[in-house]
C-alpha cells in the first residue's frame, strides 16, 4: 500500500516538475547563468508552503521531522561537486530521471553517469575508508539555533522566503524592462 502511494506521489512530483519546465536543460542552465530564475523561484515557493504546513501539523503531532545530519565539510564539499555536475548535465539526479521518462537521451546518460558516480564513491569509501563523519554536528535545524518556538519560527522563515522570491522576481522584471528599453534605443 505504502509503495503504491510512493508511485502516485512520484507521478505527481514528476508531473509538476515537467509542467514548470524543470526537465528542460535550458531552464536549469539559464537559472545558473542568472538569466531565468523560474526554477529556483519554484523550488523556494514550494519550500515556503511546505514549511508552514508541516510545522502546523507537527504541533498537532501529525508529522515528524527527518533531518539530514549537519556536516559542514560534507555539505560544502558535496554541494560544490554537485554544483559543477549540475552545470555540465543541466539536470539534477531527480530531474534527469523524469527527463529520461520524457525520452531525452542526454538525460539517460546523466542517470548512467550517476550510477557510475555512486559506484566510484562506494568503492573509494570501501577501500580507502575516507569518511567525513568526524565532522557530523547532529540533526539540527534553525529551531535549534534560534530560541523561538518552532512554529513561529517556521512562519517567519516562510515569510522571509516569500519576500526574497518576490524581490528576485521584481529584480528580474526590472532587468527585462530595461533590456527592452535598451533594444528600442538601439533600433
Amino acid at each position, binding site marked *: 500500500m*505504502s509503495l503504491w502511494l*510512493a*508511485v*502516485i*506521489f*512520484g507521478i*505527481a*512530483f*514528476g*508531473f*509538476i516538475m*515537467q*509542467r514548470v519546465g524543470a526537465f528542460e536543460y535550458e531552464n536549469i*542552465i539559464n537559472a545558473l547563468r542568472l538569466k531565468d530564475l523560474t526554477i529556483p523561484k519554484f*523550488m523556494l*515557493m*514550494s*519550500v*515556503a*508552503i*511546505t*514549511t508552514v*504546513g*508541516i510545522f502546523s*501539523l507537527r504541533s498537532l503531532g501529525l508529522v515528524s521531522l527527518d533531518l*539530514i545530519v*549537519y556536516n559542514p565539510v*560534507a*555539505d560544502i*564539499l*558535496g*554541494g*560544490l561537486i*554537485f*554544483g559543477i*555536475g*549540475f*552545470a*555540465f*548535465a543541466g*539536470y539534477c*539526479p531527480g530531474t534527469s*530521471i523524469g527527463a529520461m*521518462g*520524457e525520452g*531525452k537521451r*542526454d*538525460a539517460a*546518460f*546523466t542517470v*548512467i*553517469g*550517476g*550510477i557510475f558516480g*555512486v*559506484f566510484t564513491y*562506494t*568503492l573509494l569509501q570501501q577501500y580507502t575508508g575516507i569518511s567525513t563523519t568526524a565532522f557530523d554536528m547532529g*540533526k539540527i535545524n534553525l529551531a535549534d539555533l534560534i530560541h523561538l518556538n*518552532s512554529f513561529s519560527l517556521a512562519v517567519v522563515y516562510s515569510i522571509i522566503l516569500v519576500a526574497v522570491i518576490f524581490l528576485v522576481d521584481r529584480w528580474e522584471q526590472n532587468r527585462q524592462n530595461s533590456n527592452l528599453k535598451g533594444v528600442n534605443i538601439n533600433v
Partner: protein
Amino acid sequence: MSSRWSWTSSGIALGILNIFIFLSGNHLGTTTAYAQTTGYITQFFAPQLIPISTWTAGTCGGSGGLQVSWQWMLVVGIVIGGFVGKLLYRLKKAPEIPALWKERFGNRPQLRLVHAFIGGFLLLIGSRIAGGCTSSHIISGMSQMAVSGMLFAAAVFAAGIPTALLLYRRKAQS
C-alpha cells in the same frame, strides 16, 4: 510553451504535495534509489567487490538488506510522471541536443552525451558525500529548516553559477 504552469502555481502545488508526503511518514529523495540500483547491479555482476553491508549502511539502506524501497518506487513514479506529462500535452519529441547547448558547442551529439555523463557522475558523487540531493536536501530539507539543506543549496549555487558562466562565456573574437 503556453501550456507551461507558472512558478507560483507549480510551487504551491509541489508545496501541498510535499505536505501530504510528510503526512504519509515519508520524505522526498532520489539519491537512495540511485544507490540501491547501483547496489543491485554490483551484486549481480560482482558480488565480492562491495559487500552488501556497505550498501545497507548509512543513507542508502536503513533496516534490512537491499530492497525495493519507498524512494525507489517514488523514482518509478517520476519516470511515469514525465512520460504522462509529455503524452498529455502532446509535446513534440525533444531535439537530440538541447538547442542552447547546440548554439554554444555546435552540432556534436556525442560531446553532449559526454557532458551529460560527466555531469551525472559528479552529481551523484556530490550527493553521496553530502548525504542527499536537490529533492532531499533542498525541497525536503529546507522545508524542515534544516541547516544542512541551506548550506548544501548555497554550495551548489556557489559552484554551479561560475561553472555555467564559464561553460557559456563568449568565445574570444578572432
